[in-house]
């Protein structure tokens, strides 16, 4: 079996989620690597958009910033933040990848403060465009290590909307209809959200992990499918493209 690290595994899984012809709003790092890998494998017509204004660039290398020159290199348009966010708001962007210091069972994210907001233990960057992307893009996804300190019962701060309090709570919040968290991809498993309760649900296990491994590294009770398939491992081709064409500098996948 091919040797790969956990970041490579997550990027490959994420890339497979992005079907050809879809639009995805990405940031830097792993999400951008996943989108670039998708373009070089099954989804050559995947359209990448960056919050700061870049639309459908021909990325010559991994951007350092979502606003650097790579993000609109040979692009269809170098617009503005409002070009991108208004396109998201009127339903043109299918996917987005977001992250945070904490995530709860409804896929809500915290990137604002650890500890009390009034006197935080750690002040983090805040929403940035994450709240907007998560509100507007049809399917929000997260790539993150499976870790009790990240998967928490209660967020210190709800920066970015997932399914909020679950059930119909997002539907009733005023946020655009039928958009919300789609998949959570970790080093151990892939999760979606149970349609009624909107609670996080394990739908496949990455090679070498059991449901117990996942639950032991999660701060809340996870739902699961009765029969849990094994997430297909990265293929040689996927890994070789990722390592040689997407991230040759190993900035994201590491050394």
């Amino acid at each position, binding site marked *: 079996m091919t040797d790969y690290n956990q970041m490579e595994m997550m990027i490959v899984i994420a890339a497979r989620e992005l079907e050809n012809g879809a639009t995805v709003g990405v940031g830097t790092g792993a999400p951008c690597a996943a989108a670039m890998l998708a373009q070089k494998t099954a989804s050559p*017509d995947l*359209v990448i958009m960056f919050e700061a204004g870049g639309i459908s660039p021909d990325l010559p290398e991994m951007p350092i910033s979502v606003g650097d020159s790579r993000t*609109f290199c*040979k692009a269809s348009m170098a617009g503005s933040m409002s070009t991108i966010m208004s396109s998201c708001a009127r*339903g*043109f962007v*299918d996917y987005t990848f977001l992250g945070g210091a904490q995530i709860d069972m409804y896929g809500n994210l915290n990137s604002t403060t650890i500890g009390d907001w009034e006197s935080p233990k750690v002040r983090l960057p805040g929403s940035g465009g994450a709240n907007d992307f998560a509100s507007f893009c049809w399917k929000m996804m997260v790539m993150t290590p499976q870790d009790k300190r990240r998967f928490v019962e209660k967020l210190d701060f709800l920066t970015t909307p997932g399914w909020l309090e679950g059930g119909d709570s997002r539907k009733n919040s005023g946020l655009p209809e039928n958009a919300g968290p789609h998949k959570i991809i970790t080093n151990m498993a892939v999760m979606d959200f149970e349609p009624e309760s909107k609670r996080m649900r394990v739908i496949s296990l990455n090679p070498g992990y059991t449901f117990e491994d996942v639950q032991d590294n999660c701060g809340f009770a996870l739902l699961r499918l009765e029969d849990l398939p094994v997430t297909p491992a990265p293929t040689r081709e996927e890994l070789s493209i990722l390592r040689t064409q997407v991230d040759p500098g190993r900035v994201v996948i590491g050394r």
Partner: protein
Amino acid sequence: MDVLEKGSGAVFTDPDPDKLRAFFQTKSRIKKDKTMSLALAVETFVKDGDYLGIGGFGANRTPIAACHEIVRQKKKHLGFAGHTSTHDMQILSAGRVYDRIDMAYGVGLEARGLSGCSRKYLESGEVKVSEWSNYALSIRLQAAAMGVPFLPMRSMLGTDTFRFSGAVAANCPFTGKKMALVPALSPDVSFVHVHEADIYGNARFEGIAVADIELANASKRLVITCERIVPHEEIAREPHKTQIPYFMVDAVCEVPFGAYPGTMPNAYFSDEPHLKEWMAEERDPEAFAQFLEENIYGCKDFQAYIDRNGGMEKMRQLRRREFMTDGEAE
């Protein structure tokens, strides 16, 4: 929000952004060749009963060729955004293709006078009208483009323009000041004429933008007519020049001189004698029917209309007029 006042005018289109989102969710995002003839584009994307938007400002960078084709194909029962509309409305009125209109500016041709045809059609009672200001229609398009159901503005208040519009008045929760709130306007189909586009629909133009960017981003279906199609590589070389992104666009139609007899910045000036001829012909219904037969219904395409009215020599003359190298002072 507490509605303080409400205009009596109809809102002809649904301002619900979730319905617009559901439509755009299914619209293709793939960069594919969208070039086709204008005739096919109008046949494919304009359905009887649609709400129509026309870009440009009256007779400036206005998709006149598209207006001719819509009339030639005898489209019916369209709604129309009468926004800074002059010769475009004059053509659409001649074809009686619309039966409801959001009226901000129409009937007139600015300093040139009033179109008898547009006037009679609106006075006939066959057309349902809502009143707005030009900026109100721009803002309504911008609301749809932003994916919100309304935007606030501070004009129209206190006037009959407001009372016969579909706007409402409400107090700002931050300042307590009364605002006019105007509903989002998303045309079913719109036409915008530009200088250059690639085969995918990435479009750019020179000169003033009027409200074309709002219109393009607000419209469910969008047809770009352009003076010339350029390679995508040319667009990608300077992506900050792109004003309309390809994913809004359904069709790209190369129509040289497609804004004639109007002005195309840095390309050709308006043909004032021909515009005067239009207005003169409108006076006698029979003569006008004959004029329309010769200039629209009897023309197989817009090129035939241009050939009828001076062809390339006329276009070269209008180019000299645009650059004021013809020695003529208007």
